[in-house]
């Protein structure tokens, strides 16, 4: 290829960015297939997130906010954009990176290196909370013990509490996470497909506060397309870790994700369209009946999102008996789950010669090979 630059050729109108009409379009915007130049893409991408934040009144001036950082693209872009917007619009936030080390060899150890670089790149303090330290179980050990099938269920419950504890330790009561519009839409569909009446109405809430957590969580990327996050990271040359966790997501969620992908290919707006529908969901109120027929008096229900339905006086004893963490039950959900595992642990460690990590890794490799 010749290296010398040709005299600049005049662009056709159709080759121009559809917003500024002054620069060459370099991309098709995934959300609406608009042809845009890089500058205009940055502008709309960032402004939309700013709009989402201000419209929902997410932050208070002077607040310290933890960014749930995994080193993946969503949370890396989140850290970058939070820094940008905080400076541009003077939110007055103190930003901290909060990472969880689930103990997944070959995945989390590498992605944590990315977070450590992000700490320097974005000049933010970093706190890492590890499952192993907190629960004396790493995800690799859990999978070795109970198999791949429920890995994300365990992981989800443990992460929730780990993030809470990490934030509490730093005296922070607000965590922002990188959940994006695709995740939202997927949740809406999942809740409908599973008939989850408890969670349906909240499918799209941008801010969640649950009964057994003093920490609020919010999702500034609620309306941001996954594909645009990837493009933003790419154009801005952000340093992120792109390997996915090797423990497969739950099968049914997988089918929902495929449905969403197929639909998005058919009509790019459907992610927003589903969220729009989801924001209007309201279920018929059940008549209040005072009957506890099938419930023991003190029983409390743990909702799948980790929050607790309060059937009893919340003011009394709301600490987990085992670990002392906030819980409206005798045991917190993490302790309930881990309790079930303890029994198996002895067996596993006796049965294997290799290290537990090795065993889990082997299982993973084998399961991947079988595809």
């Amino acid at each position, binding site marked *: 290829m010749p290296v010398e630059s040709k005299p600049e050729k005049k*662009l056709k*109108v159709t080759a*121009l*960015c559809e*917003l*500024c*009409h*002054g*620069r060459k379009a370099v991309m098709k915007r995934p*959300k*609406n297939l608009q042809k845009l*130049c890089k*500058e*205009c893409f*940055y*502008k*709309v991408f960032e*402004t*939309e997130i700013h*709009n*989402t934040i201000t*419209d929902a009144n997410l932050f208070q001036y002077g607040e310290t906010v933890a960014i749930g950082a995994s080193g993946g693209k969503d949370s890396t872009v989140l850290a970058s954009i939070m820094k940008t917007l905080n400076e541009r619009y003077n939110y007055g936030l103190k930003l901290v990176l909060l990472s969880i080390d689930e103990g997944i060899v070959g995945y989390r150890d590498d992605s944590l290196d990315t977070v450590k670089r992000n700490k320097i790149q974005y000049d933010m303090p970093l706190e890492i909370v590890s499952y192993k330290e907190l629960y004396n179980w790493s995800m690799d050990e859990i999978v070795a013990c109970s198999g791949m099938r429920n890995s994300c269920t365990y992981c989800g419950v443990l992460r929730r509490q780990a993030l809470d504890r990490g934030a509490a330790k730093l005296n922070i009561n607000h965590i922002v996470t990188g959940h994006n519009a695709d995740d939202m839409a997927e949740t*809406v*569909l999942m809740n*409908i*497909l*599973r*008939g*989850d*009446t408890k969670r*349906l109405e909240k499918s799209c809430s941008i801010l969640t506060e649950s009964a057994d957590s003093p920490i609020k969580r919010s999702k500034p990327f609620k*309306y941001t397309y996954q594909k645009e996050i990837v493009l933003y990271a790419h154009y801005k040359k952000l340093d992120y870790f792109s390997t996915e966790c090797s423990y497969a997501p739950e099968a*049914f969620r997988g*089918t929902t994700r*495929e*449905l969403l992908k*197929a*639909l998005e*290919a*058919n*009509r790019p*707006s*459907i992610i*927003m*369209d*589903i969220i*729009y*529908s*989801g924001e*209007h*969901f*309201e*279920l*018929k109120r059940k008549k209040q009946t005072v009957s506890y027929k099938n419930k023991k008096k003190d029983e409390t229900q743990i909702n799948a999102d980790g929050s607790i339905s309060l059937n009893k006086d919340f003011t009394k004893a709301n600490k987990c008996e085992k670990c002392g963490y906030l819980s409206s039950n005798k045991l917190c959900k993490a302790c309930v789950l881990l309790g079930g595992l303890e029994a198996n642990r002895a067996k596993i460690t006796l049965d294997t010669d290799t290290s537990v990590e090795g065993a889990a890794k082997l299982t993973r490799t084998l399961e991947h090979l079988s595809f």
Partner: protein
Amino acid sequence: MSDITICIKCNETPSTIVNRKEAMCDSCYNRFARGKLRKALSLDIYKVNSRYGIHRILVSYSGSKASLATLDMLYDLMIEQKNRNNGKKGFEIVVVNIDEFERNSLPQSMTSKFDELKSKYEEVSFNVVNINDFLDGKKLIDYGLDKQFNIVIKKSDKLTMDQIFQSIDKSSQEDLTEILYDNILLDVCKKFQCGTIMYCETMNKLASESLSLIIKGRGTKIPEKINDTTIEDIHIIHPIRDLYTKEIEYYNNINGISDLVVESNRVISNINKNMSVKEIVDRYLRNVEQSGYSSTIPTVVKISEKLVAPSKFSGNDTSKCNICGDTIYQDCKTWLSKITVNDSAPLTEEIEHEYLKMFQDQEINEFDKSTDIPICYGCMVAMNKPVTWPTDEDIINEYSLE
């Protein structure tokens, strides 16, 4: 296999099918299936000698398996009423078919089946409605969306359904057809003085309908589309909502009516881009059912039946969509412009300004008027390309499009 199982319902006849874990004989199966329809007709208005006189039921008849089975079950009920009441009946059946012969590539036109149907279902009136007749004499308007999500309109030069659908994508066609059909049926229902419109949707169809509405941004329509309701004093019911498509097929088989079905033999593409939203949803539901998540369909219908009109927007002014008639709970333009920004980054170079000038010189605007006609979110989505729609004379006057 061991010895023959006896039907658990009548305890006499050998069973012919195991359905929902119950072994049944054909006649008990009929009672089971028809019972579902009869449950939906338990109101007094459908009974003999009711003080309401003889009620007229419009059956929305597409020729599909489900519409045929519904007609058959309904006819069976009518005959039974007559036999038990010295020839008196509580209702009359008006079958209405919206002509889809060409648009949906049916193997034969519905009218060609009518003779057979008429001889089997005596006393039923069979009618075909032509969509273009419905459009005839109505003013058609082209609706579009500008970049700021304003509704822009102009008088349309289109006349027929085919012309209308030329320029929009498959999902929008499907979406708008449904709305148009609902409108036509309501219109015909009044003309024929019917008090009930019967939609022949199985549980499978309702599940797919509900998911599709959510996906198209029409979630707020679910309470009215999935549940039985009343619109302008007309009862809208779905009497086979508790039956699966495969149960309907079996019903048609044992009653020897399968030959009367007229269904599209159009091959559905398997490429996402060439499919409609509903076709993708249907494929998905078939797949999850086959992968063993058999409860998905009833689950979706059940939770959809529990959805109601949202109350959290009660402070807002609500309005009705000019295209589909759905209630608009919040300003869609505001919602959309918040999450889809259309401002450009400032131009810096000289050449960039030149390009902008060049663009502005060439820009043509085919729409002449920006309006505040209320259009719901779902219809805005369908308007990813301008949409032509029949419109009241009032609107035309109000926005003086002449």
